[in-house]
């Protein structure tokens, strides 16, 4: 297969376009040039749709309470109520939400990477007796969303003594962290990656007398950085947005994550004024946007492979 790449220029011209559905030859036809203008216009429209709710969230959250109750609507606030941020931050002690979410995300990423990779290496590379049954059982779990069986799962967590509202330590997060260690999708990502690694590497290491543990930590893991990165990204975004299980497990007020906190605040009585609540939502999504802007390349590459490789 031949791929032709468009050269990179500061000002791209039609005659620079190589490959793809329309190339420089097609663009000699003025009708196609008009078509390209349409492509840009439609993309700009979708960008507007993608950004508009976020801008709306920002603009509305800065409005004062009087303004939201007035009968005339303006998109941007007439008075920017910046002091509201610190007022709400203190009222809900918002810093602890960020801290709790950080604790949850770090633990979840560690568990997701460590346990699923161990499982995948055991099943896909060492292949002890019974590995096929385990693989099938995990696929069964992949089909069934964990949330469906949440009631028995919660009873089980309670039986282990975890659903205690007076829990004082971060150990409350343990059942949530470990849950990420039993994720069929991450397991399958690791399994497919490990089984594609050249067998000769492992055989050579065995010849040299390395133990299985040494092969795993010194040979396999250093080669698996790409897949570790992908699983880390997936588990990071998943744990940050995770709602139902944390909502049920994190009983103590002190340990709630940001998503759980937002949901609980939405139910308080008397209800929060809309702009105030929107401001809390804005605060809750800012870390995600920052993380995205830092790791955009890695996140988008991981996301692109999601549907095609399963």
């Amino acid at each position, binding site marked *: 297969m031949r791929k032709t790449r468009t050269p990179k220029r500061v000002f791209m011209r039609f005659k620079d376009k190589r490959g793809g559905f329309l190339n420089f030859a097609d663009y000699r036809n003025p009708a196609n040039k008009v078509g390209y203008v349409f492509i840009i216009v439609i993309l700009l429209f979708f960008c507007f*749709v993608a950004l508009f709710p*976020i801008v709306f969230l920002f603009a509305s959250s800065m409005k004062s309470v009087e303004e939201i109750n007035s009968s005339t609507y303006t998109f941007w606030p007439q008075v920017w109520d910046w002091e509201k941020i610190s007022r709400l931050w203190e009222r809900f002690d918002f810093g602890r939400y960020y801290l709790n979410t950080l604790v949850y995300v770090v633990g979840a990423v560690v568990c997701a990477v460590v346990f699923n990779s161990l499982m995948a290496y055991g099943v896909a590379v060492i292949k*002890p007796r019974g590995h096929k049954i385990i693989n099938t059982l995990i696929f069964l779990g992949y089909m069934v969303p*964990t949330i469906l069986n949440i009631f028995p799962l919660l009873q089980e967590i309670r039986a282990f003594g975890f659903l205690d509202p007076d829990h004082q330590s971060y150990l409350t997060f343990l059942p949530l962290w470990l849950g990420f260690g039993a994720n069929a999708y991450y397991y399958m990502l690791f399994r497919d990656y490990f089984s594609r690694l050249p067998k000769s590497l492992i055989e050579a290491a065995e010849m040299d007398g390395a133990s299985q543990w040494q092969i795993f930590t010194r040979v396999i893991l250093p080669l698996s950085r790409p897949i570790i990165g992908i699983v880390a990204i997936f588990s990071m975004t998943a744990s940050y947005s995770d709602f139902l299980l944390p909502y049920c497990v994190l009983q103590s007020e002190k340990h709630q994550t940001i998503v759980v906190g937002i949901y609980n605040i939405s139910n308080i009585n008397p209800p929060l004024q*809309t702009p105030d609540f929107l401001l809390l*939502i804005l605060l*809750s999504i800012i870390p995600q946007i920052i993380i995205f802007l830092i790791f955009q390349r890695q996140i988008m590459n991981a996301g692109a492979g*999601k549907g095609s490789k399963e």
Partner: protein
Amino acid sequence: MRQKVPHRKKSLKSRLKKNLFGWAFIIIPLILFGLYVWYPMGRNFVLSFQKDYFDSTFVGFDNYIAIFHDPVFAKALKNTFLYILWSLVIGYLVPVILGFLLSEVFHAKGAFRVILYLPCMISGIAVVFLFSTMYGDTSTDLFNVIGSWFGADTQPWKGNVHLIIPLIVLAMTWRGAGSTSLIYLSAFQSIDDTMYEAARMDGASVWQRFWRLTVPALKGTLLTLFVLQIISVFQVFYEPLVIGPKGGPLSSSMSLQLLSYLYAFEDFEHGKSAATAIILVLIIVVFTFLYRFVQMLLDPMRGKKGERRR
């Protein structure tokens, strides 16, 4: 072809060692999968034939019969198909269009990708709260403001039993379209350029090229994501919990998963909750096998695996 190396019969000791090491890798993750996936699943299955979680009297199919007589369950089942229908109407083609446009645009491609992917980073709960405010019923809520430009009367968007599912799907599409479009983008980009070149030589019009080359080349991705989308729509849960709330007026946005949750946590009817979950599992399993079947049909290596191994 490589000559097959005659397989050495491994000694009992080395086989024992392999099994032992293999299980040493697997054992901890295996326990986690047992605790988080298999036990709750099995317990839920048993529970669906019992009276209650705390009263394990065997009641046969009573729970299943009870939910089939529950009008809310019928409503949820019907809604599930409405969700699928609307998600196909609103959300299926948007990522395809975006993927195509992104593959063709050669100005500011990176910026377009980043902006279109941004909504995917925001946690689902924040998205539904944000859209829920937009759908509000006073004249200063966004949808009513936009409606008033076109002369529409102020109306309760979320309170309309016919509109609530499309509105929920709109929020889900806004969040999900960016990441799906990246999958289509890579599918469009992997189409062989020589094919387009040949068609150009033969004087095929742009239109013919699109319908005769691009669309057939994309058939696999289109089908795969079609089935995947249906599977994911079955798992709608917190969207109707928040926008609604709790299934909306007259259970107009109730989904099966939300119903299962409400049975267990609000009505304390654990048997009915488990039975609902089991039915949902059965539906998902059917669609997952459909998905595997579709993938098998599309696999270019189909039927050639045996030959390659020989």
